[in-house]
């Protein structure tokens, strides 16, 4: 029940209160009222039928950077 599943917003419906989200090919209608400014293409975490959070787009764009940062953090520990 606490499992949040990542997905992608496909369509916003009903006055922005609901959305269709794709989970690796399976599409489901979920509650979209808890998150503001959703648009198709957004990465989101869906939990028990509701979008509870957007996944930071920046991190996904700069994912390499995020992992570089991780590598830096690791190096720091060695030092």
């Amino acid at each position, binding site marked *: *029940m*606490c*499992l*949040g599943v*990542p997905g*992608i917003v*496909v369509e916003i419906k009903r006055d922005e*209160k*609901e959305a269709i989200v*794709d989970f*690796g*090919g399976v599409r489901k*209608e*979920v*509650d979209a*009222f*808890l*998150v*503001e400014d959703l648009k*198709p*293409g957004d*990465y989101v*975490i869906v*939990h*028990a*039928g*509701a979008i*509870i*959070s957007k*996944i*930071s787009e920046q*991190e*996904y764009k700069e*994912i390499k950077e*995020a*992992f570089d940062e*991780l590598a830096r953090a*690791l190096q720091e*520990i*060695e030092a």
Partner: protein
Amino acid sequence: MNLSLEYVKRRKKLLEILSKYRDPELAKKIIEKIHIVADRIDEEKILLMSFCGTHEHTVTYYGIRSLMPSKIDLVAGPGCPVCVTPARIIDTAIKLALEEDVVILTYGDMYKVPGSKLSLAQAKGLGARVEVVYGFNDAVRKAREKASKDHVFVGVGFETTMPTVASYIYSNRMPDNLYVLPAYRLTPPITKYMLKLKEIAINGIILPGHVSAIIGVESWLFLEGIVPSVIAGFEPIDVLMAILMILRQIARGEARVENEYHRVVKFRGNEKARKIISEVFDIVDADWRGIGIVPESGAVFKEKYSEYNALEKYDAKVDNAIDIRPGCRCTDVVLGLAKPTDCPLFLKACTPERPYGPCMVSSEGTCYIWAKYGGYIVNRKEG
């Protein structure tokens, strides 16, 4: 056409990125550092507790325990909602289903967990009307489809499921034939409770990722100066990084709240969800299955929303509920005082197919996870 192509590309990218959080090479590097830092720590034993059943799943499924330095003990805490929901709630739902003309709607895990005597699944065998839903949105849909029948949703879970119900109430989207049997529980109060327990000394806490997506880093700051804590995501790299970050704090003599899961968790969390939760719920003292009353750890509907409370609508009081049946050590398992293998019934009289205690039911229950994925012994590769 164009849009859907773009869309397939994004999906590919998402999967690609998630796979990085399972990268074995990166995992190996982090584990090496964990050993280096652990060696620098003087304590002979370091107990790290996770507060989310999904973290225990990651730890066990990927065999993370067996890769840890011997001084590190990874222990699961009271982070399985199905395990800590009082038997009284299940008994009440069964009573409603058998005696009133209602359809009970419940999450799949709750469906199978034993109450004092029966589970909702067994009650269904006796003629009760019980249906499984994936989320509250599903419950709303079912109630709308069958408008002539009253429905009662078994409202359990932590700060992650609370807003999913509050969302429909707050925005006036509740069908008038749908009620909620509320048994919500809050994670910071049980964390405080755990830290006061004399039987266990916690050296670091892996904080729940999706609860924190709602309540924010901010809500954990009470842990600063008390115990090193890191909010973590649920992939193996997330959990390994959280362990490393905690060890680094211990080695430096710090006790801060850090956020490993910043791709999802913000400092203030989901502010809209928090606002809706506080509009809809009041905080009250609440009982946890096998543990007892924990101050300010539960939530009930505010007066103005009490019309949605199934307990107001129906007279469904049950007496003498039995939370823990004789022989079951679920209380100790939930508090991190015992491992499932310490229970004589584990994989004997209690199995995932025929659960005797509440920790053997949910995919977030420690006994279930150990039974399914081998607990301490197996170092399972991804597959």
